[in-house]
């Protein structure tokens, strides 16, 4: 990756607390390139209108931009057609939609839902709630000591009672890439559907719906250079067609009577109300931007940075790194002995280095790691080795500071 990519992100070119900003909180949210900011501005300055109803020119332009984004997302994740893409408010809403609309009417006592202990709360609580509502049982695929999933364990947990399997593709804490294609194959063999939380995978690697053969896949715009408040649910066409909407109102209807109504086909039946049009425009621009650079290149770059960071961090005494020894994605979660992660993040911030500290919306995983809280550095395409060096430098200074302060 070169300096030209960094140049595209205006926010990176500022000082924080007297130091050039080093932004390493990309797993929380990514920064936005100028092309995305320009697309949003252009949309509001020239094309802003409601979609699917205006006969006028602006209405057509807004609808084209909105539906155009659906096609871009479909191509980006290799869905077989754009009607398999439902626009949502983000990954959380997408997963809740599957739990409520697909799971709600279909599950009953005796049925089983399978997840892992490394799920983000957004891919855990919807299933907990679904289990509580329907009397189904929630089960966990155990983790290996390094945080990986062993397919032999998957075979043991999934059985003919399993109706839904939902697994995160890339863990936002452990930085592991889960074998979701193989898990989907096991789920299907038992007649269960496979749901994939793609919040951390879609921004950082090539993903392929037709190859994974998952039934649902949730993604988020803001983690992949797009605006916040927007995301998408991929769903196989035959499944989406069977599902009832969970929100009712304008835009999603076919015919409305005094006492009963019916709906448009999927995906539009799930998009009640005026949608997040600017979100679609922004994500569309982000996808063009990422595609032009190439997802393979981005993935390799981030893996390199993560492994470089791990190699350098392991030379600092007292650093404990969580997850496997080698990374394919740019997430490194760690702790510095004797320094609470909040204190660590505060001190790093005074050196202009932004990292995340806390439970990362993964409380069950934190308990599994036997850590109440951890620090996390996460990389994206615009980070470079100098960013890692600045992180290391700040970590060493933090260690000295807390050593002296005692």
């Amino acid at each position, binding site marked *: 990756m070169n300096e030209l990519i960094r140049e595209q992100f205006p926010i990176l070119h500022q000082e924080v607390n007297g130091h050039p900003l080093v932004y390493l909180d990309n797993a929380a949210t990514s920064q936005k390139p100028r092309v995305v900011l320009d697309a949003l501005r252009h949309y509001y300055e020239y094309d802003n209108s409601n979609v699917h109803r205006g006969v006028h020119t602006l209405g057509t332009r807004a609808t084209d931009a909105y539906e155009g984004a659906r096609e871009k997302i479909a191509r980006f994740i290799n869905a077989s057609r754009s009607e398999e893409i439902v626009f949502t408010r983000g990954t959380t809403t997408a997963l809740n939609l599957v739990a409520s609309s697909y799971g709600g009417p279909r599950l009953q006592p005796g049925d089983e839902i399978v997840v892992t202990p490394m799920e983000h709360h957004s891919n855990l609580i919807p299933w907990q709630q679904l289990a509580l509502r329907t009397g189904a049982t929630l089960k966990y695929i155990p983790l290996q000591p390094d945080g990986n999933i062993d397919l032999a364990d998957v075979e043991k947990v999934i059985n003919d009672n399993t109706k839904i399997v939902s697994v995160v593709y890339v863990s936002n804490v452990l930085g592991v890439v889960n074998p979701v294609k193989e898990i989907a194959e096991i789920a299907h063999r038992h007649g269960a559907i496979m749901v994939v939380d793609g919040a951390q995978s879609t921004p950082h690697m090539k993903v392929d719906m037709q190859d994974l053969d998952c039934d649902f896949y949730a993604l988020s715009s803001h983690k992949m250079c797009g605006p916040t408040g927007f995301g998408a649910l991929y769903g196989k066409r035959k499944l989406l067609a069977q599902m009832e909407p969970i929100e009712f109102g304008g835009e999603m209807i076919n015919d409305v009577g005094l006492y009963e109504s019916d709906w448009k086909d999927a995906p539009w039946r799930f998009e009640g109300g005026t949608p997040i049009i600017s979100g679609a425009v922004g994500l569309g621009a982000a996808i063009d931007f990422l595609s032009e650079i190439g997802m393979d290149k981005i993935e390799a770059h981030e893996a390199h940075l993560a492994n470089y960071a791990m190699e350098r961090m392991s030379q600092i005494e007292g650093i404990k790194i969580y997850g496997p020894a080698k990374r394919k994605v740019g997430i490194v979660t760690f702790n510095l002995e004797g320094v*609470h992660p*909040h*204190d660590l993040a*505060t*001190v790093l911030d005074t050196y202009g280095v932004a990292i995340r500290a*806390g*439970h990362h919306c993964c409380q069950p995983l934190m308990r599994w790691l036997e850590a*109440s*809280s951890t620090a996390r550095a996460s990389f994206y395409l615009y980070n470079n080795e100098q960013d890692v060096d600045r992180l290391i430098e700040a970590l060493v200074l933090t260690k000295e500071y807390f050593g002296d302060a005692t």
Partner: protein
Amino acid sequence: MQLDDLYRRVIMDHYKNQRNRGTFEDGAMTVELNNPTCGDRISLQLQVEDNKVVDAKFSGDGCSISMSSASMMTEAIKGKTYAEALDLADRFSSLMKGEEVEFVEYEEIEALSGVNKFPARIKCATLAWNALRKGIGEDSLDN
């Protein structure tokens, strides 16, 4: 931003050697509170008699700011009436807003004044004090 404003020696001392850390065997009011955004949690125990805090202990898990604040608070409220303890809590809120307030009862608390320059950390400092309010304040468990 001056780190030393945040991590003064007195704070580190209370963090490394937390006063009143532990639990009472029985007969104490227990308040559990956590900070869901960061995972810090505290269990505050108060031995109370006639609207007075006779003794206080805490356990929990958190950063240097939350734990040192709990350490100082439990020292400061021992032997205080509810009204006096809640007055301390009010002054602590003022301290977090950057106002100049004194803690003649327990001056070390003033070392936490620097936290107000780090808005993201104010919630850490106030965790123990919020537990105190939950225990003996207007909306306390007893009411």
